[in-house]
């Protein structure tokens, strides 16, 4: 058992005899209320997503999972392929399970694949990943009044991120894979 306070993305829990992967969570403190954690969970057996709010000090059953270091190879439509560099074993994960993560994959990136009873469920990305910028609007001066001190840029894998005005096409930048935010020049 563990406390809801300790859950994070990719925690696997057992509720009413079903296994769930936590895909999103958010601490909420309603006015005049105790502290709660709002979560989105994916039922491993049915693939269905549900939303549930827990009290933050509630106990839940954490399920032990295996984490395997693997390298991302490529995607073929919905299926994303990863390889174990030791055994050369390859596995595929459905893109639905990689929502918010597949956007930060690039060929050769090492990730941790989360396995439960031999089945890959999700991955954890390195916190910071370096990407090459393949397209960026030219920097526009001014317009600071609206808070717009960033511009859109496209990463080598096609994902779009906001970057500071001084970043140019061809440069390499570091992106925070949790928030999707620009961190710094690589």
């Amino acid at each position: 058992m563990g406390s809801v306070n300790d859950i994070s993305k990719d925690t696997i829990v057992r509720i009413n005899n079903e296994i769930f992967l936590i895909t999103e969570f958010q601490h909420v403190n309603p006015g005049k209320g105790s502290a709660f954690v709002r979560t989105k969970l994916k039922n491993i057996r049915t693939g269905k997503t549900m939303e549930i709010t827990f009290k933050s000090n509630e106990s839940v059953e954490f399920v032990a999972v295996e984490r395997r270091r693997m390298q991302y190879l490529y995607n073929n439509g919905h299926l994303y392929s990863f390889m174990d560099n030791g055994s050369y074993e390859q596995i595929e994960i459905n893109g639905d399970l990689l929502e918010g993560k597949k956007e930060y994959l690039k060929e050769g990136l090492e990730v941790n694949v989360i396995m439960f009873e031999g089945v890959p469920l999700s991955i954890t990305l390195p916190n910071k990943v370096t990407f090459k910028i393949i397209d960026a609007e030219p920097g526009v001066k001014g317009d600071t009044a609206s808070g717009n001190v960033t511009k859109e840029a496209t990463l080598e894998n096609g994902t779009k991120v906001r970057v500071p005005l001084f970043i140019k096409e061809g440069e390499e930048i570091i992106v925070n894979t949790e928030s999707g935010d620009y961190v710094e020049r690589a």
Partner: protein
Amino acid sequence: MKWLDIKNNPQLAENLKARGEILRLIRDFFYQKGFLEIDGPLMVRYGNLEPNLDLFNTTLKDNFGAEFKMSLITSPEYTLKKLLAANFEKIYQLSKCFRNNEPWNEGHNSEFTMIEWYEIGKDYTDLMNRVEELVNFVAKDGKIKYQGKIIEINKPWLRLSMQEAWQKYANVDLNNFLTRDTMRTLALSKGYTINEDDSFDDLFFKIFLTEIEPQITAISQPVFLYDYPVQMAALSRVKVSDPRYAERVELYMGGFELANGYSELIDFEEQKQRFLKDQEKCRLWGKPAPEIDTDFMAALESGLPVCAGIALGVDRLVMLLTNAKDIGEVVPFTVKDMML
């Protein structure tokens, strides 16, 4: 270093200027409406008794070495109500409030600024009108552009009772689930986790925060949510026409909980019972129970006029008006900034 960010990022400097201007406009508004600004104590002998909030406690020493336990206010409520008992009629405090053990995230700082006001002879409906007036006065434009959404504050704001909100968004008739047992059965049937010590409020919030609140915060108009189940009355008076509910109102705007107000409870006996219950709750949760403010109780016993009061989070209002995503963008130095 935050000061360097402020020096180099014109947006942060603009936000701080906007904050100063907003504070001035709030004071202008209340001055024009005939309110008196009260500059009440932030460090008090009796901290606010709210089981869900944690006080900042400190020790005061006098020059003879005597020690007194003091707390920082989580709201100036007791001070302002004592002054209502002393015949003040329209008063406000615009000051810092402090809450310990709160997250340091986009919408929270352990020290924050609140505008809290009271008016005698009014109820929570009048408060809703006053809030609309205030925000329109401060925003000037009739529109707030926040995070890609337009909030049309010059059009009528949405007013929903809790019962209407549960019906509309969760398809549940709240009237049938107003006890701990019935709420527990409902939560269980919906697949929520249930614990032995879950109170009515806890079960209510599990469903509300999952099924109702996200839909309310997604509405681009400001929403007043009013008539809370009586268990969640806090310091509001029970509705005369329906004692299952209390005259409490919360304002949701731009995804934030922006204000919380009441037709104030003025009944001495009822207040005493609620405070005793709150102290009991603290003990049950294993945290120190603040003592009851005897001066406040004496003021209530002497007779408080019918009145209404509300507190509005100024940092969040500034965030809305400057299109800032994080409270750190509108406060010079948050506690988080100081720890880095």
